[in-house]
């Protein structure tokens, strides 16, 4: 035995001593995909899914601030969030989360550019405008022109929010040209890898046009803002915008398995184990009452009935920030969940990313502002009908028409006398149409045009006069790793420091 071991060691020595020239060239990973072996079709599916997932499930806090949702009676208060007293560690995942996805898009864009896959390049540019829009809408000035360049800009400087928005519109110009002129067959595997539109050029052009309108409507309150040249680009393209039934959604093949469920379903309805996914977020009384006291049946579609109703309160909500005694009988199981049947249809449903509902409301507002031609009333009523259809309301069109005909200020076009009142009406109905669908948009519109006008503030005892924050603080990581640049932005007070479009 001993001899065998010695002998084998000698053999190994001889074998290894015969050094070849590439003897030390063994440092290429056999385990991981590297920048050399990645390709755009391997990046696109995951980043499309990740963006849709973040947009649909990451905005619980704005949903609570804005009166959509509230904390269930099972949980104790979250002092920082409910008193609007936000710090540099609050919501820090937003900054890192968007840059993480934007990094994938940036790598995909450069790779696609290098190998002439222009369709992928155009998609990367388009989706990047969503990411930077979310960053600007929460932080105003952020790294943009110096981002994604570790070798030369390890401490990326910040760009102004308005300059970023201006460049996003330029990027949409470029994306439109790239996609319009792309030869689909040059873009390997795009029919499978593009899990939004399956590589359909017209759909992407509509998406770009709608995204352009969204960036313009954001800036509506800036004095002297003139969107005419940008609107002309939408008109010139001729593909139109996302219309009724044309919701852009992501479908990689969701299934009822660990980590593979539809993101909204998984976050707010049911886990793959069959357990309830969310016993924290519950209906906010403000929204629940806005539906119920105005003959609006949509509360049954955006909210779940209580699992075990108390005192026959099938639909039960909470007041945001209220500190309830432990003796309060309404716990999570006795109140309305936020994954209502109009939103959570199954674990395998596609995940919406840009809904027809939102698009129609954007168009209605643009028409009312005179940016687009057409009847503002028709566009408004179509948008409200689209909301009923999207939620799967029984006899959706008829029910929506009855609702539209009610002589209630919350819905009646004719009761809104002035152009300003009509903008408020469109905004209010957009607010009522988007709970759970796009919580972030409601926070944007509240800051932009002040809807809903009668939103109550948090009942948190330590609110101390604060109001709904106008933005987030820069994340603590920036103070740690990019200190000089973040401090150059000066002191940020989320109670008074505004986003550039918030006037």
């Amino acid at each position, binding site marked *: 035995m001993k001899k065998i*071991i*010695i002998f084998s*060691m*000698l053999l*190994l*020595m001889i074998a*290894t*001593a015969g050094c070849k020239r590439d003897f*030390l060239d063994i*440092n290429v*990973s056999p*385990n*991981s995909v*590297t*920048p050399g072996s990645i390709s755009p079709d*391997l990046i*696109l*599916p*995951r980043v499309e*899914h990740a963006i849709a997932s973040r947009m649909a499930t990451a905005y619980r806090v704005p949903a609570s601030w804005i009166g959509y949702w509230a904390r269930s009676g*099972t949980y104790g*208060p979250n002092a920082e969030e409910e008193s609007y007293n936000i*710090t*540099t*560690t609050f919501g*820090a995942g937003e900054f890192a989360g968007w*840059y*993480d996805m934007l*990094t*994938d898009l940036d*790598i995909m864009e450069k790779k696609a550019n290098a190998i002439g896959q222009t369709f992928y390049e155009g998609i990367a540019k388009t989706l990047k405008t969503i990411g930077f829009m979310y960053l600007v809408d929460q932080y105003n000035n952020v790294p943009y022109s*110096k*981002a994604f*360049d*570790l070798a030369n800009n*390890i*401490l*990326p400087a910040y760009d102004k929010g308005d300059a970023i928005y201006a460049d996003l519109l330029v990027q949409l110009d470029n994306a439109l040209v790239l996609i319009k002129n792309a030869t689909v067959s040059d873009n390997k595997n795009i029919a*499978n*890898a593009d899990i939004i539109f399956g590589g359909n050029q017209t759909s992407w052009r509509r998406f770009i046009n709608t995204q352009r309108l969204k960036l313009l409507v954001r800036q509506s309150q800036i004095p002297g803002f003139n969107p005419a040249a940008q609107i002309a680009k939408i008109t010139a393209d001729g593909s139109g915008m996302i219309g009724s039934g044309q919701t852009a959604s992501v479908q990689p*093949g969701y*299934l009822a398995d*660990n*980590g*593979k469920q539809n993101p909204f379903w998984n976050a707010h309805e049911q*886990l*793959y*184990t069959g357990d309830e996914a969310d016993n*924290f977020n519950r209906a906010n009384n403000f929204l629940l009452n806005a539906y119920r006291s105005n003959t609006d049946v949509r509360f049954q579609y955006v909210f779940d009935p209580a699992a*075990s109703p108390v005192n026959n309160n099938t639909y039960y909500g909470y007041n945001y920030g209220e500190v309830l005694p432990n003796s309060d009988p309404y*716990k999570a*199981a006795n109140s309305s969940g936020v994954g209502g049947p109009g939103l959570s249809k199954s674990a395998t449903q596609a995940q919406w990313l840009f809904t027809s509902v939102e698009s129609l409301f954007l168009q209605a507002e643009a028409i009312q502002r005179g940016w687009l031609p057409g009847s503002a009333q028709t566009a408004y009523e179509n948008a409200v009908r689209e909301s009923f259809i999207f939620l799967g309301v029984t006899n959706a069109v008829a029910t929506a028409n009855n609702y539209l005909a009610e002589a209630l200020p919350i819905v009646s076009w004719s009761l809104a006398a002035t152009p300003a009142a009509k903008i408020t009406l469109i905004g209010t109905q957009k607010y009522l149409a988007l709970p759970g669908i796009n919580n972030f948009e409601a926070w944007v519109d509240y800051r932009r045009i002040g809807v809903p006008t009668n939103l109550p503030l948090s009942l948190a005892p*330590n609110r101390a006069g604060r109001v709904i924050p106008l933005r987030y*603080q820069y994340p*603590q*990581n*920036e*103070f740690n*790793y*990019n200190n000089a640049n973040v401090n150059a932005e000066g002191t940020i007070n989320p109670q008074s420091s505004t986003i550039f479009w918030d006037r």
Partner: protein
Amino acid sequence: MQDAIIKGIVPDDKNRRTGIRLSSSREYGKFKISMNTNYIQSNYDVFDDGAMGAYNASQNVGLNNGLMNLIFNTPAHIPLTSYKDFENNPFASYNGYFNDYGLNPYFAIDNWRNTGRSEDLISNVDLGFKATSWLSLTYRAALNMTMNTGRSTSKGEVPTAFGVGRGFASIPGAVSDFANRGSRLSSEAFANVNKQFGEFKFSAIAGHYFRQTDNKNTSVAAGNLVVPELFNVANRTGELAGGSSFSKTRLVSVYGSIGLGYKWANIELTGRNDKTSLLSKENRSFFYPGVSASFIISDAIGAIKNSSVISYLKLRGSWNKTGNVNSIGAYGLSSTFSQASGFPYGALAGFTANNSAPDPLLTPEFVKAWEAGLELSLFKNRVGIEATYFHQDNTDQIIPIAVSSATGFTSSTVNAASFTNEGFEFDLKLTPLIQLGDVRINFKGNATYNTSVVTSVYEGLDEVFAGGFNNFAANFVVRNNPAFVFKATDYLRDDQGRVIVDQITGEPSQDPNNKVFGRTMPLWIVGLNPTVSWKNLTFSVVGEYKGGHTAFHKIGDDMAWIGISKATAVNHRENFVFPNSSYEDPLNPGKYIANTNVTLSNINNFFTGVYRDVASNFLTSVAAWSLRAASNSYDLPKKLLGSAKLIKAVSVSITGRNLYLWLPKSNEYSDPDFNFTTGNTSGVGVSSINPPTRTYGASAVITF
């Protein structure tokens, strides 16, 4: 042979270590061959803390990781040990346990287990050939193999309707199996020359060294078992999880040294060139030299040689440079991509860039060190003194630095951080200190002073994160500060250092700029080791002092959340004025008025909110004296062993470890030597660490 069964302080934890060692050698004339083989097997069955933490995280439960946290979550009047029988006692069961915010620890211990075996085989063979009286050749081959196989299991639990009503979710039954294998093969050949020319002595070594490491890790897991407690990955729904990875590295070195000696003086030059597969072609080869010299003054100078006071005096000094690339592993020069968030979905793959991007042109890190020292013995070797001064310049240290996520990554491994390290070591031996007849008292003491200064960090960066809890209490490398220091959150303070509170709520707020607190490594380490012996009985004590450094105690934060720490009971849990605080003068912004009357409006919010966000509340000095060990041993007198030569010696002893600790008042928490992770980070204690234990032992050594 060795066989040890170790039971931890966690109920049901078992660990058994069995080792066998063989060594043999033989000479055939000028040849010599020797061989050693050591095989160690450890079998373990322990609580899987990580899996419980992962479950809590998936439930978004405020409960933190760690078994100790479950105990912190238990009020002091609860008779915890009466909840052992969670299978039959309804009040101890998953559904019925009284605590909404924590599991029954006995249930947790039973549910999540890690079992497995690790095996180490260390063997080497030496071949020697003495060619002439002055030349010898040696070849040495060594093989280290480690094999780890194990599994983590979760038994799983489905809540009853009662449990669901309390908001309890099901715990999936799960199993994860892994098999890791690693080997390290080295081969070394060197020639050694030793030649005496009169009073001069010449020596030289030339050698070649080669090392190859191979690792293969495989794991497979199922997260949702169908038949409970049948731990086979085939017994599942959903997809199989797992992965496999390989790595291989090589290192080739040549080295040599030349030494020259004259009676009382020695000088030696060394040099080594390494080539490693870990670096790029242009950077993989690096050379590092050294020189050392010593003079035995007591031999050189006649007056000292004949002195009755000084029995020995030697001066020594050395300078050397060493290089290494130990901080990176195989394939560490490239960023990578992984599938994420549920991908692949059937035929659809989806990759995302991982968050770290190394500099592809990393170079080795170097240390240039010089030291000077003396060794002195007095009074016929009764007093021994050794003193050394050392100075090290560490340059281009390979470290991962955290970067703004706007760069596209969150961490980048670069050559950064240069720092100097200097200090002295002092050893004192008094043998014997006192001798009274058969009673002999010896004393050994040593002291080390070690300080460091970071001279540069990275182009454009003055500091980097090195480990710990980022944005809370972390180890940092900060220019012009020691390596490392704590950087932690603190209260917002005015220019006089008073904590600024809100004029209405009385509540302080957190400063967004983290501040530098003390060093993480001790400045002073002092060890004292007196020994008293009387005939065959020996009593010895090891005392140790470490001081000048700071540690962070996460348990302070965890205990504040539950309201069981000392701080949360201050002022009988009534509202109070925050000590040494001020508020902004409403008429004079930027000026602050001393706060004497605005009390905290809600101490519950304070202690669960900003108090916990401010890590400086849990940073303390950890200077401490400790009685690390004491032992009492007795050698049986030879005459008791009888004349039979079967047993040559018998020695029995009792020992105690960690017997006592003297902590500063501010440290209400724990022994600071307990760290939350291996690696670079130091001084960060968390609740997943089990508390330090005092141990006693007895042993008997019989020599045949």
